[in-house]
């Protein structure tokens, strides 16, 4: 585990201070799951998809964690990462590898490109979650693994999206859901591994129009659940991005394949 253990006292103090143990992964059980993304070749078909169990970072990656990564991987420092992997705004507001620990350390790292996020997860033996894994995790609330049908839950999540994006993200470590995962809603947008595959619609087997051919047949966006606005906004945002893009409100967390006993 990458979390530095300086003794039981430090851990107890951190827990007492209400900090999420930053590099903790929690087990998500997987199962059949109905995604807002259509799973069949016909448009709008909401067939259930199979999600294998996986371990998910309990919180988004923080600035302190990313700073430590930069110290070990100088090739990912701002100014060093090639333009094809990270745009000009990459880490524009830090952190830099030689920054002293600071007040913003527990905030989620943002202004990170998909390639950089991938490299970070790779460095701790993980990867970015797939959209399906992220959506599966994000369906939970404090007591239920799938709270999506509850209008109150939907409304609560939507209220975050109504906040102006100019407010700097707070520290990670919001209240845990039923799996022990925090901050999936209400903090930052998050990269997923297959961000560039979300708006691809079903194959309608039509020919002739280049626009329809662009998506192996169909051009129309088809969503199985049009009422889940909050999740649809995520998809809209992610699919508008290129892999080198960065944003002040876009961070990430990693997954690992489920192995051994849940922690």
């Amino acid at each position, binding site marked *: 585990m990458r979390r530095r253990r300086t003794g039981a006292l430090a851990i107890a103090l951190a827990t007492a201070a209400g900090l999420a143990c930053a590099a903790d992964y929690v087990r998500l059980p997987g199962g059949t799951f109905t995604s807002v993304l259509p*799973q069949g070749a016909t448009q709008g078909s909401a067939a259930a998809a199979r999600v294998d169990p996986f371990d998910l970072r309990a919180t988004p990656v923080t600035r302190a964690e990313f700073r430590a990564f930069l110290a070990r991987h100088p090739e990912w420092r701002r100014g060093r990462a090639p333009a094809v992997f990270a745009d000009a705004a990459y880490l524009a507001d830090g952190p830099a590898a030689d920054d002293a620990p600071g007040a913003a350390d527990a905030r989620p790292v943002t202004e990170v490109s998909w390639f950089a996020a991938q490299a970070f997860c790779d460095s701790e033996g993980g990867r970015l979650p797939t959209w399906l894994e992220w959506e599966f995790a994000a369906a939970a609330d404090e007591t239920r693994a799938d709270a999506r049908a509850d209008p109150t839950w939907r409304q609560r999540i939507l209220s975050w999206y109504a906040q102006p994006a100019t407010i700097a993200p707070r520290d990670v470590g919001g209240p845990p859901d039923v799996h022990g995962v925090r901050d999936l809603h209400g903090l930052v947008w998050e990269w997923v591994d297959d961000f*560039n595959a979300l708006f691809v619609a079903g*194959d309608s087997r039509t020919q002739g129009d*280049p626009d329809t*051919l662009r998506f192996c*047949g169909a051009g129309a966006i088809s969503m199985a659940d049009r009422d889940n606005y909050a999740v649809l906004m995520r998809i809209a945002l992610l699919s508008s991005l290129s*892999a080198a893009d960065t944003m002040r409100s876009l961070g990430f967390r990693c997954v690992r394949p489920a192995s051994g006993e849940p922690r």
Partner: protein
Amino acid sequence: MTRLAPTRRDVLSLFAFAALAASARAAAPLPGDSVYQLHPRLVDQDGHPFDWASTRGAPVLASMFYTSCEMVCPLIFESIRRTVDAFDKPVRDKVRVVMVSFDPERDTVPVLKETAAKHHCDARWSLVRGSGADARRIAALLGVQYRRLPSGEFNHSSVISLLDDEGRIVKRTTTVGDVDPALVAAARPL
């Protein structure tokens, strides 16, 4: 520096030697916006390791496909073949075509070999496969979108990229089934 460290002059001459050696070995540094910044591990249709940057120095048409695709993928092969034919002779002679599978599970080397034969791919063509993660990274570079469905089919976009001799994308087209004149024009100065 500890007291056991070499003198400053020693260090300087070491640096000078290293710099000299490096400059003699390496070509000009790769531009930051070159897709060859990526180092995927790939294998071609003959089972040979395929160095992603080996096409540096030549114009390249790059795209992605999966063999069991019945509709658009054959059209991509067809479009690229006709685009190559439409290039002016100097470009036509030196252009390379790199087709990356996003279905490495099923697109094994023998399958790639068969696909290359079926589409009459000559020596300018490389059909390559790597890990699923490398396929996803290459797709991100080339602006290709794909998603595997539970049925094993893929939803995917069709994008053909023209790279210059340093691996910079100079033109992308989503025109499939026909030659995009803009792609041919963009290749003229290469």
